[in-house]
């Protein structure tokens, strides 16, 4: 009963923060937009070329944008002391962390998913590809946040957080990147994306099972 109350409170608070501070979802989208608009300047504006790189650029952009949101998970709370409320709670920390990531995934995931097909137009991608890309991003954001939560938890009390987060997290996101972008690529090539989507779903389930536990252990290590 009080577990439900506690997870509910964690989830609700994350949502309240998301509603209260527009910058929490606006900044990642603006960042995403800027990353996506930089590449054509470097590559050239022919739509055939853009079509080739578009999927990759958009997916990597979404990946980086969700990585930028990682400090919000624990660092902010560690600074104002409210992380201790979560750590001291009798409820299992992994479940509380999961509630938190779920809320963040819904908020950030929705924002990035909506933005993705719009940005796909920059790259002259057909509508069906843009749609598949949005679906891929929607599946990938929770996975990335779950993996990233481990690093974010470890780095709560360490020096050089932001860059180190990137060094730790990005290599682990490669499978998600491969299959996330791969699904859209299949559609672009007129093939079925089912296998890639299934694997992405499998990664999400695996991350759901393991990452909150690892993140809880990490948080205990770094705040002890």
């Amino acid at each position, binding site marked *: 009963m009080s577990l439900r109350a506690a997870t509910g409170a964690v989830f609700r608070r994350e949502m309240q923060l998301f509603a209260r501070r527009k910058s929490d979802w606006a900044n990642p989208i603006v960042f995403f937009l800027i990353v996506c608009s930089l590449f054509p300047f470097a590559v050239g504006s022919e739509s055939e070329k853009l079509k080739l790189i578009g999927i990759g650029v958009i997916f990597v952009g979404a990946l980086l944008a969700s990585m930028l949101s990682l400090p919000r998970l624990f660092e902010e709370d560690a600074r104002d002391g409210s992380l201790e409320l979560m750590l001291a709670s009798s409820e299992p920390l992994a479940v509380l962390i999961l509630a938190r990531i779920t809320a963040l995934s819904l908020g950030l995931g929705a924002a990035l998913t909506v933005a993705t097909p719009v940005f796909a137009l920059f790259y002259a991608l057909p509508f069906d590809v843009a749609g598949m890309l949005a679906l891929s991003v929607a599946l990938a954001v929770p996975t990335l946040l779950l993996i990233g939560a*481990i690093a974010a938890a*470890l780095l709560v009390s*360490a020096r050089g957080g932001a860059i180190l987060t990137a060094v730790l997290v990005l290599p*682990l996101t490669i499978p998600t990147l491969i299959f996330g972008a791969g699904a859209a690529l299949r559609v672009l090539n007129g093939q079925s994306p089912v296998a890639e989507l299934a694997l992405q779903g499998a990664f999400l389930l695996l991350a759901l099972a*393991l990452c909150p536990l690892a993140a809880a252990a990490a948080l205990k*290590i*770094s705040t002890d």
Partner: protein
Amino acid sequence: MARTEQQSNDKFAGRWFWRYAAPAAFYPLAGKIEKIGWVLAVVLAAIGLYMGFFVAPTDATQGEVYRVIFIHVPAAWMTMVIYLAMAFWAGTGLVLGTRLSFMMSHALAPTGAIMAVVALWTGSLWGRPTWGTYWVWDARITSTLILFFLYVGYMALSAAFDDKKKGDRASALIALVGAINVPIIYFSVKWWTTLHQGSSVRPGSSSMATTMLWAMLIMTFAFWAYCVAAAMHRLRTQIIEREAGAAWLDGATK
């Protein structure tokens, strides 16, 4: 921690593992292993290189450039083996709380990273004349590159904590997370390469002459011996750093 370790030592008194889990007990043993390692590394490398350059014949398809594999393949194997060993000791440290296990992980990481660099460098120099390009996004090469990133992340993380104990446990956790991810990454990249470029370029799997195989095997053992010796040396340095103030060290380092 010191106290609980002492307790566990009492509890498991007589079992060799716990006896050597104490840094003071392992320090002289590590010294012996290190010496044997250096000697074996030099002797085996001399034999292996002699066989590799003077006994093994020229490869029919690749010519002389194949002689790079006598160091490339052992380095690639070692970087993988060392990562597994590192993750194993990290896990042992997290579960049992033994200081020596964390030190073992830290001692292995730099050598593992160096092996990854050597494997990538020699691989690309071998690839240029063989495949016509310095770099191929092949599953094995890409995984080695990612393994290198994981080593770097592990080392950077353990250095990012002022509290060594926290650094130990935090980096141990990331080593384990990496170990779970390495096979996933490997198979993902493998899937991805078949999707993108088919099987046009693949590392050669032509049959090797037995002398070539022997030379490679002996070089592999030489690499093993070298890595063990280097890790033991680093381990002893860490014991000196971390056990500063312990009486037994005075005699041991003079």
